[in-house]
């Protein structure tokens, strides 16, 4: 299924596009592996950051600040920010494309995120 989707992604790229971008770049755009890894890295860092416990439990920030010297850990905020930015467009809207068109993968690099249409 995944391989089939990759092939499908290349359909709307015409000769002009493939001359400007190599095929591997195009495929990389549609894959989510990098984003999943980014999230796993954040979660991994959070797991081993003992300061998160105090900030997550809503203990007073003065106590957290005294532990780190920099205030509550920023990692939960980073994860929250990541999750906010990496949602599907279906969270925000729905629409109907003409026959022959369909949605591509969610692409995090389109503005704050978006979809390309495939033909």
């Amino acid at each position, binding site marked *: 299924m995944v391989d089939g989707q990759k092939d499908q992604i290349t359909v709307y790229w015409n000769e002009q596009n493939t001359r400007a971008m190599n095929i591997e770049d195009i495929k990389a755009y549609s894959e989510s592996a990098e984003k999943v890894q980014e999230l796993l890295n954040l979660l991994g860092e959070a797991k081993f950051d003992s300061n998160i416990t105090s900030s997550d439990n809503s203990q007073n920030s003065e106590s957290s600040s005294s532990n780190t010297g920099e205030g509550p850990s920023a990692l939960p905020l980073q994860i929250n920010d990541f999750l906010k930015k990496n949602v599907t467009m279906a969270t925000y809207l*729905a629409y109907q494309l003409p026959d022959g068109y369909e949605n591509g993968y969610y692409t995090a690099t*389109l503005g704050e995120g*978006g979809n390309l*249409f495939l033909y």
Partner: protein
Amino acid sequence: MAPVEWYAAGGVMRLPYDKSGVINGIMYNHVTFKNGKLISGSNGENHTLYIGEPEVLTNVQEQAVLREVEHDLYTAAELGAAEEAGNPIPKDQWTSKMWEIYFAREDGSAVYCFFFNEKYFTKKQAIAVAQSVQFTEAAFQ
């Protein structure tokens, strides 16, 4: 290299918006309101030419405005390099033209830009897609 969306058949993207006009410390917004009415939109990108006047759309769930835009797909250096390499890029492929449709609420925190490559979509088709858009409660929060 030109942004991927400039080559695409079309797409939709979410953009930041703040009524104050300041986004990430920069004075810029993707849309313009006048007396509460959405009157224009743009991506604010280099190598982009807006054609004609904005067209306010009707029969849409939220305020929407249509623009026609032309993007440069190659720099002069890239065109020169391709020609020197014996593989000149035909002039009719130097640019892409798109119908852009911006949706926004004046008090919202996001703008939605649909873009339709004119090679794939007629203006009528682009407007039909815009008129089919249904936003969720989370769309402009």
